[in-house]
């Protein structure tokens, strides 16, 4: 892209906000009643988080991978691609996230969870509050975005769960959801959407918390190595 510095957010806009919201309405109508299944899976994850179980890491990773794959195919490749050529790349990215979740969480079993208020709050926001906020800002309820069905709540919920992951910050799993929050926020901002702040704030909060956790762990490692 030549003279890239002359491009603004308005230049990435290629459809209207009404068309974008309508896309979710058509998506929700086409896949009904998959929303019920997705919310049930979201509640199952919540229940698993509250119950110590050696298999819960694998089960949660499998559910998340299924959700990312579903969004990749049903939303990005099938639906969003009718509006923008970039959706086919989003579909590949969401598919890649599903593969990484399957590999790391299911095959290798490297995803275990611990308690944490911030991660749980972000997860519950994505699962329960995100779809309820949208009608309050003027969006038709038929056009709401549901976890496991639409990209934003799926990405935000995944980031919340990754904050609950034990051990180091799982940047390899968080990279694509963080990137998506930035892309989605920029897309919504370009159309002056009132809900642009949701993915942007969700991504920013998780980025700040994850970075500070990484720095804290690094400091602890340095202190313990000095002591020994």
């Amino acid at each position, binding site marked *: 892209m*030549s003279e890239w510095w002359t491009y603004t957010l*308005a*230049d990435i*806009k*290629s459809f*209207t906000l009404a*068309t974008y919201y309508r896309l979710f309405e058509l998506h929700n109508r086409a896949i009904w009643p998959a929303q019920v299944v997705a919310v049930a899976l979201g509640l199952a994850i919540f229940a698993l988080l509250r119950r110590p179980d050696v298999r819960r890491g694998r089960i949660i990773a499998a559910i998340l991978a299924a959700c990312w794959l579903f969004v990749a195919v049903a939303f990005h490749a099938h639906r969003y691609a009718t*509006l*923008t050529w970039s959706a086919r790349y989003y579909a590949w990215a969401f598919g890649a996230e599903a593969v990484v979740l399957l590999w790391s969480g299911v095959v290798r079993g490297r995803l275990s969870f611990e308690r944490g208020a911030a991660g749980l709050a972000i997860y519950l926001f994505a699962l329960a509050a995100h779809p309820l906020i949208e009608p309050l800002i003027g969006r038709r309820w038929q056009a709401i975005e549901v976890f496991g069905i639409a990209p934003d709540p799926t990405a935000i919920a995944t980031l919340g769960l990754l904050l609950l992951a034990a051990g180091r910050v799982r940047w390899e799993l968080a990279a694509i959801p963080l990137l998506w929050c930035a892309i989605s926020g920029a897309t919504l901002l370009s159309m002056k959407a009132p809900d642009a702040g949701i993915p942007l704030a969700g991504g920013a909060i998780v980025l700040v918390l994850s970075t500070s956790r990484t720095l804290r762990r690094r400091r602890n490692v340095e202190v313990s190595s000095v002591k020994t």
Partner: protein
Amino acid sequence: MPNGSTLTRRTLISSLAAAGAASVLRPLSPAGGRGPIATRPIPSSGEALPVVGLGSWITFNVGDDGPARDSCAQVMGTFFQEGGRLIDSSPMYGSSQEVIGYGLAKLRHPPQLFAADKVWISSGSRGPEQIEESRRHWSVPRFDLLQVHNLMSWEEHLPTLFAMKKAGRVRYVGVTTSEGRRHPEVEKVMRTQPIDFVQVTYNALDREAEDRILPLARERRIAVICNRPFRQGALIREVAGSPLPGWAAEIDCANWAQVLLKFIVSHPAVTCAIPATSRVDHVRQNVGAAYGRLPDEAMRRRIASHVQTL
């Protein structure tokens, strides 16, 4: 799609068919008592083109939403009914080409259509494939005008487009840019390549094209299409709160859209402006700018300075 240089039998039949269709759709003729629609000749052929066309960026990108597609078809129907001809699109505009194809089929392919599209791909060898895909989306036998979008790989695409023109598979060739970008390169193409059209951004606030592009277009006898006449609607929103000045009536303008469009199309080098809209009332207003008196130089200065103060 009439042959440009002379009034052929096909042109006459097309025009009569268009007039007939319009009279069926609406009791009044396209002129509706407003006199003939203002046209400008394409310098390379002399073919007359109405000074207001129809863009499709953003507004026609509605995907496979049935009611929204019907609404776009209605906009197109009104555009033709009011006397418009040129519709412009690009493979970059998402589903816009398919939506135009849907609208044209629904309107039974109005013969007055002047189909303008673009090639937008970095690989020169894949240009013909993309053009063919675009043609299928529009469902037209051939495009009237093919432009290299944003000058992307123009060195590779232009020879293809000139070869297509020679073979009768397109009637005119052009290049496009927007928002004042790459004007030196546009100039270079205008000076060195036998193009028929150039498309640039030009409106009452974005007037860089006046410095070199528009004078060069006159000198080189190149038709000029002006994109972003309302800055993606922002300009209309800016002026909407202000009352229409009394002098607007002197140039037969009933609304701000017509004032802004008449400023553009009254420049002697401009062939047409291509406002995009998804609303029937707006397309009617826009094409309305192609009727009645056009501003003279003094009035053009007045419009520009007035818009700048708002």
